[in-house]
């Protein structure tokens, strides 16, 4: 096995142990784990999750393709999600989304920036309607983001910094966020 070896193997076993007698429930956290190792979920990742759980690759792929937070194609080191659902749209989210593209120098539909740093994603409601427009960088919240603030956030990512979120700590990047989503780390010190 290429992905689940060494520490990742031990992590995978810890995840499976959360669901004694119902190991299939570990599919989603295992997909997050492969995403944290590879930066996205590859064919090999699907195959290894299947092998670990005694399922077929098709069964795992069926799950992975259902959920937007599993990325099946190469993905930037940081994922920037801009909510444009109604509550955010009423507060100017469309302009924020455009500003993100301009600042990142990315076309609509371009999944990853040329330098591999950024993936931009237009999001459905992120559950931060009280601080609209809402943006997440690697699933950490940035509240009441204006187009100008959006450009600053992208600039600091470009400068190799991780901007401080409005609540909680900032994951170090998309891979680290995926590791947190696998439930493998608690409250950071």
């Amino acid at each position: 096995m290429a992905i689940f070896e060494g520490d990742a193997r031990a992590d995978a076993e810890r995840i499976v142990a959360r669901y004694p007698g119902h190991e299939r429930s570990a599919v989603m956290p295992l997909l997050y784990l492969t995403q944290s190792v590879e930066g996205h979920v590859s064919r090999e990742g699907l195959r290894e999750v299947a092998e670990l759980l005694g399922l077929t690759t098709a069964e795992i792929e069926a799950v992975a393709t259902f959920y937007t937070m599993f990325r099946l194609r190469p993905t930037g080191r940081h994922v920037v999600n801009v909510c444009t659902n109604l509550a955010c749209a009423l507060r100017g989210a469309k302009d924020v989304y455009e500003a993100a593209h301009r600042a990142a120098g990315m076309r609509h539909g371009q999944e990853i920036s040329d330098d591999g740093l950024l993936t931009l994603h237009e999001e459905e409601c992120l559950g931060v309607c009280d601080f609209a427009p809402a943006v997440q960088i690697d699933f950490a919240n940035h509240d009441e983001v204006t187009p100008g603030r959006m450009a600053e956030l992208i600039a600091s990512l470009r400068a190799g910094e991780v901007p401080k979120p409005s609540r909680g700590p900032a994951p170090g990047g998309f891979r680290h966020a995926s590791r947190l989503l696998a439930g493998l780390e608690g409250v950071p010190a």
Partner: protein
Amino acid sequence: MTFEPRLTRHWDDPSVATLDGYVATGGYEGLRMALGMAPADLIQGAKDSGLRGRGGAGFPTGLKWGFVPQDTGKPTYVVVNFDESEPGTCNNRELAERDPHRLLEGTAIAARAIGCRTAFIYVRGEYLWQAIVLQGAIEEAYANGYLGSGICGSEVDLDIVLHRGAGAYICGEETALLNSLEGLRGQPRLRPPFPAVEGLYACPTVVNNVETLMNVPDIVVRGAEWFRSVGTEKSPGSKMFTISGKVERPGNFELPLGTPFRELLEDVAGGVLGGRSLKAWTPGGSSTPLLTAEHVDVGLDYESIATAGSLLGTGAVMVMDETDCVVEAARRMVRFYAHESCGKCTPCREGSWWATRVLGRIEDGYGRETDVPLMTEMGRNIMFRAFCALADGAAAVIDSSLKHFRDEFEEHVRLGRCPLEPSADVEVAS
């Protein structure tokens, strides 16, 4: 009489997010009492309180617990629905972040009521930070004997497992959530059997919303009569409301059920942004039919909102003002359902996609004279024709926007453009 906050009464005190801080405010007293009570009495207490599920459907919580058979020989499960994804809704996020132990305590009491020894909390993936907060609270609770074997010195065991979703609105539908938790695609199941009989792992299961469960500790400690001392006869207690969009002070606010919308809008949220006038609002998220300025004095409770032609849903009020285009808003809302449709049923999968396209061409100035009647027909052909209620959300947007704003749709078609300024020009409050 001023309303004394319940769910939010410790929001000013950040220490309540820790176990010590929570216990210092009387936390876990309800669990201790519940462990000394017969499960049947806990269920009766919940029934007497009149507590109704806060996740949207408003189903009586005690009744739901009472449906769980106790003689199947199978384990029973409590599953907490923390997949909060209804557009406009974010109260569960703030409740769990500020007061995580109250959620664990409510979950533990529900577990006691139905004889469950492993409970799951299904939290939407995007709530990364809230999941970390909850995981920390769970670890604290284990370390201090509130979870694990022999909780609070009793003979009762309870484990709580946190499970993260991965970005799918449909997983808020309880049977889709259960499939997702079992490691399947999050598609809804045929009912019956209902989860109370065959839920998680084909075992008797109660699925409760975060806000619902956070009401439970107080009901045990203070009693059903206290709970009913605010709210209305049929909608007792308080409710969290999220108000967003064009208001001066968006946020999550707790109010007695039955509070007139005007009070939430004007007194609590500071009125419509920039002193403009109210045009339309959703009472309970984007899946609940739009209401208008003429409904400003309607009470925010299940019955009054239903009488006005909508649903209380999650209590998520999104406010649009006179400068906002209803066609554009409808397009954005229907597009959400097209994106989130699980693909199982044709009226939902194809209907929401098609409706998004037609709404889009009307808004963009390419609407045809036949489009408005076409939208009406589409709404009729989607509503109640799919497996679950997701598609009904799209139909509710179409129906209600046409019902209240048909002229605006027709004007778009007649002028060949949007008659209103786009809403994006509004200054964002910093």
